[in-house]
């Protein structure tokens, strides 16, 4: 197995290992989705109107749970030193770690998103689009979140700092994804929203690792 393939497999195994991180994120996601009817009232029409948007925001919040340990664990136990001292560029290493986070956590959350939305009363016909948006948005969340996680390396209460850094950067995919789902539900053109979401995700995949690697080098030094 190539070194980057081995790293991807390790990241996924660590995420799914002891503690079941992705299940915790999905559980948190279900909790947020369940809280909503308690806050806005149980009327089906009201819930259905906000279901897709709530599922989308809950996805962003749930992703945060798994981000704070993305680099911190490796930083604390010395693995980041060894990952940096390698023939693989640190940028690529950071990208693989985010990809692993997306596969291990983003994908299960993307599967949960349509279920939560339908549970709240969204039209079941929206389910494939909710899943697609959650998948693309989750990729953006992972790579943007990786930047925040790398920037907060070594900081006290790094998890909180990560959230403060990345939440503003979560705004575009939340707008694009939520807009796409609203437009589709209303029978309006939705392709531009989805295109913007995919473009944002692609940009974060392309540029995020550069920022992550620079932040990791800074933390190591």
């Amino acid at each position, binding site marked *: *197995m*190539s*070194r980057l393939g*081995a*790293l991807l497999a*390790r990241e996924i*195994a*660590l995420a799914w*290992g*002891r*503690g079941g991180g992705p299940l915790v994120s999905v559980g948190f996601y279900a909790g947020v989705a369940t809280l909503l009817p308690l806050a806005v009232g149980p009327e089906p029409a009201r819930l259905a109107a906000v279901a897709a948007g709530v599922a989308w925001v809950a996805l962003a919040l749930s992703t945060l749970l798994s981000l704070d340990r993305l680099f911190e*664990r*490796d930083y*604390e*136990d*010395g*693995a980041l*030193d*060894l*990952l*940096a*001292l*390698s*023939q*693989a560029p640190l940028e690529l290493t950071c990208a693989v770690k985010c990809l692993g986070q997306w596969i291990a956590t983003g994908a299960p959350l993307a599967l949960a998103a349509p279920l939560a939305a339908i549970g709240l009363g969204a039209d079941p016909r929206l389910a494939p689009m909710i899943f697609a948006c959650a998948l693309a948005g989750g990729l953006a969340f992972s790579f943007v979140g990786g930047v925040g996680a790398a920037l907060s390396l070594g900081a006290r209460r790094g998890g909180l700092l990560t959230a403060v850094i990345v939440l503003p950067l979560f705004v575009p995919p939340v707008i694009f994804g939520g807009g796409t789902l609203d437009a589709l539900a209303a029978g309006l053109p939705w392709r531009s929203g989805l295109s913007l979401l995919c473009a944002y995700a692609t940009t974060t995949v392309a540029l995020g690792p550069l920022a992550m690697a620079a932040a990791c080098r800074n933390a*190591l*030094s």
Partner: protein
Amino acid sequence: MIDVLTIKELAVQRGGRSLFAGLNLKVRAGEAVALTGRNGSGKTSLLRVVAGLLKPESGEVSFGGIDVAEARAGGVHLIGHQDGLKPARTAGEELRFWSAWNGADAGAAQAGAEQLHLLPLMDLEVRRLSAGQRRRLALARLVAAPRPLWLLDEPLSPLDAGWRIRFGEIMSRHLDGGGMVLAAVHDPLPIPARTVELPS
């Protein structure tokens, strides 16, 4: 392949405090150098500068004309205070991963485990290992994926007397094969080594 490490006029600061300045050091193939000095004298920082993880204030590190980034990426092993091992993974998984990361295959990982007498422990989670066993697991990386320059930070501290001698034999074989060792130590290395004391 790296056959010499040259440090010229190196100055390192940490937290605004100068650790050392004007340090010159050359380590040739087959040579071991023991870095000594009081706590906080900059031994670990020097190893990290050589590994490229820490930028010096001034001075340079070179590897005999080989591109520095290339030399570090493919020719340097670093064993630091922290071992980079994940408690929830088994010793075998961790050794195979780091061997693959360093460009070696599973057979090499097995050979590394064998030399460090880790085979009976390969299915144990790292959290179940003693400090000495964890250190041996980290040291097995050196054997599994041979690289010429070993940067070792207190490599002996958790090892018992028997394993200090055995690791000395492993270092001797590495030096006999043209390797180099630069080790930050408080206790003497169990092999003939030139001692360089960092000023306090």
